[in-house]
């Protein structure tokens, strides 16, 4: 029997970390044929949609607040049309002179009629249903309570039937609802993140179980826990990258479709719900965070399981 071949002097050990494609071969890869990338894709798509919804709502609220912050409305609540017109004219003239006021606009009766038409019908009798006169005011600064009180004081004598309100107060319940929806979307993003981590944990446990023999062999051949964990990390990382890309694409399709639908509404408020470039970057980062969570979960799961071996 001839001598066994000796390992050449060039086979210096420990120079090359066990990794890459060769190490990945140890765990059979199903890729898109397996459930993992699709589970991650669905999770990422839902997270992207929830995050985009939250960001859009934030933009709606911010833009609306900015628009309304410097706005106030004066209502002349007077039943007599003549007196109402007199007080409105006097109030508009006085307000225009006030240093806090940037501009005023009396809302024409025709515009008011158009606003009320859906409820009162065409040609409603203004005498039978007296409508207040409205003056739209743009202030130089935000409509603080002090400014509003100053305006109220100004109008007491000339227009005693005047009522001054900040425009933002009309939409306070809407802002409250938007805020609730924002919290909901944030909670959804967190829950979906946790669900993704749980799905990866289950997948890593399942992969560990399915490849238990192989892991034990590598372990007994001197493979370290980190080496073995890296194999699974890489495998799950590939699945998560595939799933993340598919999920991001699905999420973007839904976002763009919904964006188009909301654009078609032509609502002034919804028009402020577009996403800016920082929002798009945040959305693009979601799959990357998903991949990082998946790899970290796989690593922690595998290292935990390996610690049970000697």
């Amino acid at each position: 029997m001839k001598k066994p071949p000796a390992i050449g002097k060039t086979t210096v050990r420990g120079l090359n970390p066990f990794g890459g494609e060769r190490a990945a071969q140890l765990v059979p890869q199903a890729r898109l044929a397996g459930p993992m990338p699709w589970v991650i894709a669905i999770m990422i798509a839902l997270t992207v949609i929830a995050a985009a919804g939250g960001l859009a709502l934030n933009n709606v609220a911010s833009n609306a607040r900015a628009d309304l912050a410097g706005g106030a409305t004066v209502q002349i609540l007077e039943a007599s049309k003549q007196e109402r017109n007199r007080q409105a004219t006097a109030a508009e003239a006085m307000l225009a002179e006030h240093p806090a006021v940037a501009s005023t606009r009396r809302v024409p009766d025709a515009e008011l009629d158009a606003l009320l038409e859906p409820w009162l019908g065409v040609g409603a009798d203004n005498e039978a249903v007296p409508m207040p006169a409205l003056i739209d005011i743009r202030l130089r600064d935000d409509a603080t309570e002090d400014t509003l009180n100053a305006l109220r004081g100004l109008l007491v004598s000339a227009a005693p039937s005047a009522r001054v309100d900040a425009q933002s107060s009309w939409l306070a319940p809407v802002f409250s609802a938007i805020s609730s929806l924002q919290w909901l979307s944030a909670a959804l993003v967190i829950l979906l993140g946790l669900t993704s981590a749980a799905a990866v944990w289950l997948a890593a446990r399942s992969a560990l179980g399915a490849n238990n023999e192989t892991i034990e062999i590598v372990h007994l051949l001197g493979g370290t826990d980190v080496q073995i964990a890296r194999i699974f990390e890489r495998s799950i990382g590939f699945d998560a990258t595939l799933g993340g890309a598919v999920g991001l694409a699905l999420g973007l399709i839904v976002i763009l479709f919904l964006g188009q639908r909301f654009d078609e509404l032509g609502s002034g408020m919804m028009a402020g719900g577009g996403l800016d470039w920082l929002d798009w970057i945040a959305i693009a980062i979601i799959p990357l965070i998903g991949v990082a969570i998946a790899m970290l979960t796989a690593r922690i799961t595998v290292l935990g399981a390996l610690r049970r071996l000697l």
Partner: protein
Amino acid sequence: MNATEKEGITFDNVGLRYGADREVLSDVSFTLFPGSFYFLTGASGAGKTSLLKLLYLAQRPSRGAIRMFGTDVITLPRNRLPSYRRRLGVVFQDFRLVPHLSAYDNVALPLRVSGVREADLKKPVRDMMEWVGLGHRIDARPATLSGGEQQRVAIARAVIGRPELLVADEPTGNVDPEMALKLLRLFESLNRMGTTVVVATHDVHLLKKVPESLIMRLDKGRLSDPTGALRYPPRANTQAGNRGDGRG
């Protein structure tokens, strides 16, 4: 500690029990002299596989002391055990080849785990495959190999890293007598190059094939060593003098 104990492997009053059951190994004490050839015999259930598991660091004993290459491996932190495992070669009774890897990749596995570069392991792996007579089957998956061929791949994987200790659990159990003899000659060749070899077998005919070997006999978990040769092996009975040739 003498030089033998420093380089070799010493078991001192080792006991092993699984859970609350009775001990499967009791008061096992011996020293594996570097470069020697041992047969581990005993009836089924005598504790051979348990003893081998302790040898290839798959199990910690319940009591006693084990020193390996000068280190107490019982108290060694588990993160330092891989470097000791890389100095061992193991041929499992059931081969334990990775089913979805080719024969080549199975044999290359210990080198890859040890951090050998791809370019550097091609030749040694191919040479090793030739050496075990499977140069023409390097791309074959284990499922397509016969029992004897799988056994030889398992042996090639065990010896590719030039281990200091080779442990083989019933390596001839699944092959015909002719192949068994060939495999034994493979172990002898490796042993002549300085590797300590421990072969667990219940085939008494095999023992006669290696006249220089020492016999470790387990009976109900106890090692019989009436002459003390296992614990204090006489240098003349070992092949230590043959060590050192051919190490790369």
